[in-house]
């Protein structure tokens, strides 16, 4: 009757306090420039961190993607991380390291993320690593300091939730659409206090890249945890990665990893089902990820809603500069962004390139690969030329326009079709207007200059 969550939780629980909190062992702690507050906090109390061998740093949030750092304050953020790493004797993938990339991309890529681990990072999208059947969640600076000092974390056990997706996804529809579909259905706080396990044959058929996109967006529905039980797809991905076990140790590990699944009769506090065939390519129109609709729909009319919801929708439409009742495909965009830990893996770049090859973008845009390794691979496959021939900029690696900390941002009032994870007010820059969608959908928007259903573009391509 146990769930995957039960198994992972008890495997990491060192103690349970009277008030019900568990003290959990942390297998991997990933830090980035934003962890500076935690290191500063620690400096006044302990001389060294508990487990430098289990702590890995990476420059991503402030990494420049076009030449040099945008300001001295930004350069200082990067320098501080690198000097903290040196002082504490932990590995840091710095700016010139071939292993550098966005923290949630390089963890799996380097084999640091494995099934059965507990992974923490001071970034809410740490849920990404749950795609491997790991207990992975984002934490704040005080908690980061605690993990640095003790390699443990106090945590109240979340409730369990399962989202089962069955059936075949239509061509042009992928993990991003799936995630936005359930968030639109349940709301941006629909999974608050819950750990989600994604299940069903549609999830099983997803690649690791797709599963990571799905788990990544769990936090946008309020869940801190998103998980997929490991299987052959997971083991094949992990095998041969630099920090992953090898040889007999790998085989031993796999025997254990195969036990990491919910029992067939396990019960969940919340159990949701989705039909994959019903999911269309999705875009967001508003300022919360729950403001998501099939691209074939129209901008909602606050007049048809009531109470605080009507006010919220009206405010979002006003900020986004939209007209209620208009078709979403009539929304003209100013630029595109392809990047972030949600959708900047090789599969994402291939999906966008497949639409852009031989076509021209009507608007400017950036394509920022998720890691140096992905950049190298994409260039080996000639994807960079597809993007630049279409008129987009192929830039360096980092969080870039996902969080607009490194100087890359969308100008006030401008509208961006983006593969990122948050359409919050001001997320991509002050007064910036963000529409979230999949890489293929961003490519389609680039080609027409409007929010666009990618499916006809796929068929036209097949006809050639």
């Amino acid at each position, binding site marked *: 009757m146990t769930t995957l969550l039960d198994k992972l939780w008890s495997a990491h629980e060192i103690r349970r306090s009277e008030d019900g909190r568990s*003290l959990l062992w942390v297998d991997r702690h990933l830090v980035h420039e934003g962890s500076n507050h935690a290191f500063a906090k620690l400096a006044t109390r302990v001389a060294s961190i508990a487990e430098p061998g289990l702590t890995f740093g990476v420059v991503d949030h402030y990494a420049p993607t076009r030449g040099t750092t945008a300001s001295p304050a930004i350069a200082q953020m990067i320098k501080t991380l690198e000097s903290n790493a040196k002082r504490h004797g932990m590995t840091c993938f710095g700016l010139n390291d071939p292993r550098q990339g966005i923290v949630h991309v390089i963890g799996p890529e380097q084999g640091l993320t494995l099934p059965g681990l507990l992974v923490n990072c001071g970034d809410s999208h740490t849920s990404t690593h749950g795609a491997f059947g790991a207990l992975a969640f984002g934490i*704040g600076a005080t908690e980061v300091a605690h993990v640095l000092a003790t390699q443990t974390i106090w945590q109240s056990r979340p409730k369990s939730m399962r989202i089962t997706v069955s059936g075949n996804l239509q061509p042009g529809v992928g993990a991003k659409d799936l995630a936005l579909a359930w968030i639109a259905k349940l709301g941006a706080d629909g999974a608050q206090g819950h750990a989600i396990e994604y299940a069903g044959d549609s999830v099983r058929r997803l690649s690791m890249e797709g599963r990571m996109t799905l788990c990544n967006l769990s936090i946008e529905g309020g869940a801190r945890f998103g998980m997929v039980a490991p299987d052959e797809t997971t083991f094949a991905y992990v095998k041969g990665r630099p920090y992953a076990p090898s040889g007999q140790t790998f085989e031993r590990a796999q025997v254990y990893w195969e036990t990491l699944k919910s029992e067939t009769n396990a019960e969940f506090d919340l159990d949701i089902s989705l039909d994959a065939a019903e999911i269309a390519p999705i875009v967001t129109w508003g300022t919360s990820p729950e403001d998501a609709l099939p691209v074939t729909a129209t901008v909602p009319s606050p007049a048809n809603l009531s109470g605080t919801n009507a006010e919220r929708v009206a405010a979002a439409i006003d900020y986004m500069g939209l007209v209620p009742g208009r078709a979403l495909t009539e929304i003209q965009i100013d630029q595109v962004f392809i990047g972030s830990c949600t959708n900047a893996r090789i599969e994402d770049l291939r999906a966008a390139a497949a639409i852009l090859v031989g076509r021209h973008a009507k608007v400017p845009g950036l394509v920022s690969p998720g890691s140096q390794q992905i950049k190298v691979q994409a260039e080996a496959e000639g994807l960079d030329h597809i993007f630049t021939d279409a008129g987009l900029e192929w830039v360096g690696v980092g969080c870039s326009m996902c969080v607009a900390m490194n100087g890359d941002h969308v100008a006030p009032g401008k509208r961006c079709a983006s593969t990122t994870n948050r359409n919050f007010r001001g997320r991509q820059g002050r007064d910036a207007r963000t529409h979230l969608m999949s890489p293929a959908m961003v490519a389609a928007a680039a080609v027409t200059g409007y929010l666009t259903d990618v499916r006809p573009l796929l068929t036209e391509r097949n006809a050639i």
Partner: protein
Amino acid sequence: MTGWTEHRGLAAALDIANVDTDQLIPARFMSTPRSGDYGQFLLHDLRFDRNGDPRPDFPINRHPEVNILIGRRNFGSGSSREAAVYALIDFGIRAVIAPSFGDIFAANSINNGLLPALMSERKVTDIITWLDGDSAVFYLNIEKRKIMFDDQTISFTLSDASAQKLINGWDDIDLTEHHRPAIMAYRAQRAKTQPWVFPAQETAG
């Protein structure tokens, strides 16, 4: 962090749902050292226009002395940035009352002595309606899980663990140090039974 049990102060409503941490503090301010005043960044882009002038009708501009905020659902959703809590604290906010909170935000709040008080949507709506855009003196008590204002007493929800931390001003690092032997025993056991959980390059060395 010093603990606290009760507080009397001025409350005002921030009648907006989904106030995410990007709104509580825009990312571009986050390279500021903690010694700086984060209060000036609180809700910056809602509070100030593009010229940097305060929007006079924005709640915390109308009531700059507010220290209890009444918010709407999904307050503090989004990123894990603890700076969102620093901005609230530095501005002088001691408690936020809302129907739901982002999980990480709530944990960060407790760690910084800020009370995230959960209350049903209906009760929150009643309070916001009663305030009618004004501010009023509220009294709140963590131990009793109650707020009082006018002639009303309303209870809120907070877990025992969170209440204890706020009241005692506990720092988890001190608490965890007591468990060091158990932690070390766990580590040794893990290394023995599941050696692969330690990174390959480390165990090889």
